[in-house]
């Protein structure tokens, strides 16, 4: 780990809390911009409420469109946090330290955003609570056979878990903040920090909690996107009804999620001038992690495509035919493969690229564009050519409202993370220090080899 500069605790505090204790110059401008976009999103929802979903581009038989695609996409992004924090924590990957918090926060906000979409997408969104086991005047419980009942339970479990994750990892920093602030903020942080003193016992408990949560949240992590994928896979819609969907969606989620984290790290590094904390070596490791992930994704992608044409059933073939040869799906397919795998992975093979922040930024964005398209490519064509009643085949074109909502969703997540960064450090201070303490090197002959402490 050549780039590591040994910093004093003071330097670390000062560097990592700059966003919280002071406000960067760009902050308010960005906030204003984002809020206007969000305003657009709100208008869109209001219009849908007033006139009905007619304002979207949906019709018969394409009843699901952009909003659902966007939902799947954001649930996907939300897999970054746990992937990084919990799995890497269990694997004791040293380089995770600066990445964890940001990833977890991204998880929380993207998941919350995702959860909005199925709700506003309902015909009677003001009745959303009917999917919860609450029956008072209806005298009928939700139907547990429906994937749309599995969905909310999985998502809200995951949301709770992820938030706890963030909070647990936040405790020590809250302590620091409490000591560094005055007035209402002091009281605020004080209340949140639950009397954190940072004595060894507290640290050990907090560490145990971390390990415990990591273990507990893993099944949820897998189940969430599996269940989302089953929304589609259990139905009879051609090209949806594929057994591979669950792992395919999960790995795709990790792919886009981790790329999302990369994007975010790039932005943070520049925005908060965290060059000492977010270093090329971290991007290097993320890049290396992404290669097998992307490859597995491609493997499942191929399985899905192969079995789409396998057996030559007209219902599947018509969809696959449309996906490959018809505009815009054909081009989309090429774009997905190029931007989702071929270009980035072949680039990540080179250490130089992995350590080049600018390139990593572009590549990670590229991956997520392709993943968004992939979800669209997966979901819509199946509905457009549903079954062999060719008489009913229809083309889906998104409405303005839907596009506005998609844009707004990106704004919402960014805004959420920004707001978070205003109150809490996006890089865990204590992990930074711990990492520095645990950092070791071994002398072998003339070389110094970086080493980890076997926990």
């Amino acid at each position: 780990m050549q780039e590591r500069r040994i910093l004093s605790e003071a330097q670390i505090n000062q560097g990592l809390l700059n966003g919280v204790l002071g406000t960067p110059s760009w902050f308010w401008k960005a906030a204003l911009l984002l809020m206007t976009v969000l305003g657009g999103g709100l208008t869109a929802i209001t219009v849908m409420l007033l006139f009905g979903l007619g304002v979207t581009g949906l019709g018969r038989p394409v009843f699901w469109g952009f909003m659902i695609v966007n939902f799947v996409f954001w649930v996907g992004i939300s897999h970054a946090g746990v992937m990084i924090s919990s799995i890497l924590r269990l694997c004791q990957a040293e380089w995770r330290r600066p990445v964890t918090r940001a990833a977890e926060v991204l998880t929380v906000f993207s998941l919350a955003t995702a959860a909005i979409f199925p709700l506003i997408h309902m015909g009677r969104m003001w009745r959303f609570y009917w999917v919860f086991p609450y029956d008072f005047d209806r005298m009928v419980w939700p139907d547990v056979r429906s994937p749309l009942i599995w969905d909310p339970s999985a998502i809200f479990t995951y949301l709770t878990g992820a938030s706890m994750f963030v909070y647990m990892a936040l405790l020590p920093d809250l302590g620091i903040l409490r000591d560094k602030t005055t007035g209402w903020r002091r009281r605020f942080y004080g209340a949140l920090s639950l009397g954190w003193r940072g004595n060894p016992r507290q640290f050990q408990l907090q560490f145990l909690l971390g390990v415990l949560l990591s273990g507990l949240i893993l099944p949820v992590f897998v189940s969430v996107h599996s269940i989302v994928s089953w929304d589609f896979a259990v139905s009879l819609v051609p090209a949806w009804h594929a057994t591979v969907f669950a792992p395919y969606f999960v790995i795709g989620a990790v792919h886009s999620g981790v790329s999302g984290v990369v994007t975010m790290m790039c932005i943070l590094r520049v925005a908060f001038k965290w060059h000492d904390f977010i270093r090329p070596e971290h991007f290097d490791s993320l890049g290396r992690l992404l290669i097998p992930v992307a490859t597995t994704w491609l493997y499942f992608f191929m399985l899905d495509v192969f079995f789409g044409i396998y057996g030559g059933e007209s219902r599947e073939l018509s969809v696959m035919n449309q996906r490959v040869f018809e505009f815009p799906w054909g081009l989309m397919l090429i774009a997905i493969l190029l931007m989702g795998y071929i270009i980035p992975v072949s680039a990540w093979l080179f250490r130089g690229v992995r350590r080049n922040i600018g390139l990593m930024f572009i590549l990670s964005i590229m991956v997520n564009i392709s993943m968004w398209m992939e979800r669209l490519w997966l979901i819509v064509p199946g509905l457009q050519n549903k079954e062999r009643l060719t008489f009913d085949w229809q083309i889906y074109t998104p409405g303005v409202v839907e596009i506005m909502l998609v844009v707004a969703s990106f704004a919402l997540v960014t805004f959420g993370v920004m707001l978070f960064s205003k109150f809490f450090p996006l890089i865990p201070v204590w992990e930074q220090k711990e990492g520095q303490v645990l950092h070791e090197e071994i002398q072998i002959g003339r070389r110094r080899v970086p080493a980890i402490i076997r926990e």
Partner: protein
Amino acid sequence: MEVSRRDFIKITGASAAGAVLFNGCQVPEREMVLESPVRIPEDTINSFENWYASVCRQCGAGCGILVRVVEGRAKKIEGNPDHPLNQGKLCARGEAGLQALYHPDRIRTPLRRSGPRGSGQYQVITWDEAIAELVSRLDDQAKQSSADTVVIATEPTHGLSAHILNTFARNYGATLMAHEPLEHTALYAAFKNLFGQERAPHFDIQRAASVLSFGANFLEPWLSQVNYSRQYGEFRQGGRSRGHLVQVEPRLSMTAANADDWVPINPGTDGVLAMAIAHVLITERLADATAVQAMTGGAGADALAAFRPEEAEKITGVKVDKIKELARGLAAKSPSLVIGGSGPAGHTNGLFNITAIYALNFLLGNIGKSGGVQFNPAPPTPELAANLPATPMRTWGQLASRIQNKQPKPVNLLLVHNANPLYSLPPTLGFGNGLKNIAVIVSFSSFMDETTAMADLILPDHSYLESWGEDSPDPGVGYQAVGLQQPTVEPSYSTRSFMDVILALAKGLGEKTRSGLPWDDYKGALEDIGKKLFALNRGSVRAPDFASFWHGALQRGGWWDTQSSPTLPNPRPPALSRQMSLPGFEGSDTEYPFYLHVYASNSLYDGRGAHLPWLQMTPDPMTTVSWQTWVEINPKTASQMGFKEGDIVIVESPAGKLEVPVYVYPAIPPNVVAIPTGQGHSSMGRYGERRGANPFLILSSKTEESTGAMAWGATRVRISKTGKSYRLPKLEGSVLAVEPDDYKVVEITR
């Protein structure tokens, strides 16, 4: 009878029970818990309903209907199972009658024009004023002994209403004309010539073994759609061996689509084909010998030398083998039935076509046979026998010119009822331009159609669901039948039945005019007819006294006598014409490369249904397009000319031009384009006006040579791009619906 508590709740206090359930104040029985939300709206409330029998007036067929009335509101129209014509069935247009009753744009009171003509500014007046004004105007004309400057235009009608109108017009001295865009003049002329009957014969399709139809769209609005459709069902799967239907027509119409064999033919040459078939029948000794004797004057096949299949092929474009196949098919599958419809009739040689076509029935010995052409007896009473057929377009042309140059006499007063000549007469006739020369135009329409919009005085008629009436259907069912129309709901607005108004006028105009019209209102007239039927003491309803007879008749929706054996005509085979007559067209084929094939829309018919949103939204059976007019073009032609679906093109004939979106129609010859009628109203209520295009506007004013009927097939057009495009509102999806080979949606067997 035992009714459980729950049923009691359901039947009576259901809504209350529902409310309680829905608020969940109590835990009801399990079934109700699970089903309450289903049962509350649909099932537990069963409204208390009355059913009234009446007659449908959405077209001329006169089907019997039952109207479901709940709390004084008509809720549903269904076919009257008792009525011999439709036997409980009904068509889309009949179902949509409710919207004519509850249409937001109905004219609700008598109106007098207050602004310039056509400005749509009217002032509300009372009925007394209205009647008084009309009476005085008529009186003036009568006093100036210019009663013949009064023209009364209605739809073609028969029976009592025709009787009253005729009498009134005769007494007063007014000219009485009937207008129908797709008139059957030529058809009826042929019936008269061949069968010696004023009335249309009864086609016994259901018992026929094979039917050869020349452009007779009998499954679509043509003469009596529901009756023919019902028979068609039996014809196909009625238990006997499945009938064979062949349709000869330039375009694959809905009827052709249901035929076992569709024979595309050059427009207007149907007669030639029919004669060629006759030729084959005769040469191959497949025809009834005596008929041949009579029809060829003993000359046999030589008489038809001009129509040898080889010759016919050149003209009709139908292959020789096909012609022979058709002839043999007819002969093999007996009883057979040959019918011809608007297609062949709507040409300059219409009468020739139709005559030739129906003449085949003589050769095949179908006349009067079960499964062939059967004849309808005259209605039981002279009043019901009265008839007011459509006035040929040529005559309308003469009227138009008379209006325009006030020669020989001007038209001072025009009374219009259920006719919309302004919409459906080709502009080249100059009817529209002439209107300014008419002093007063009076309309009895209940909707602001084009003609009514020009009216000075509007005396809105009842909806047919609010008024009395009668109809002895024509074409009939082979025996005497009289349908009775009665008010099913109270009139919603201050409207008055046209017949009542006429009778009021007659009353107001004094004894001369009133002679023969003793009644105060139409109901009275109807009851008189009722009395006569009662006096016959036969048929479906018999009763000790008139009152119960009358109620019985009204309840069953009419009176009919299946046993009636009145004298039926026994026509002698006609002589076949020896030289052929070919259709004439407006526009040279070099300048105007396409035949224009105008056909009646399945839902809007000739445009009278355009104001009803239900009929507007009814998908066209073939193209599934609704709310619009389109021009059907063969795919090859379309690709050559670079048209794709939705491109708006200009269809131009010598008479005028239209802007219409293209529908690429795989089942139409490359040299023919087709446009449905019905749309393109400039004024027809919010749902009907300013949508689509009106093909009548570009029709030439050519007429059928001998009868003067409108020849709506006699126009050629050319087509050019506008560059504009439009998404056709259609039910069909984004691709041309063709079933995958390995999985048929519509499975087919031999």
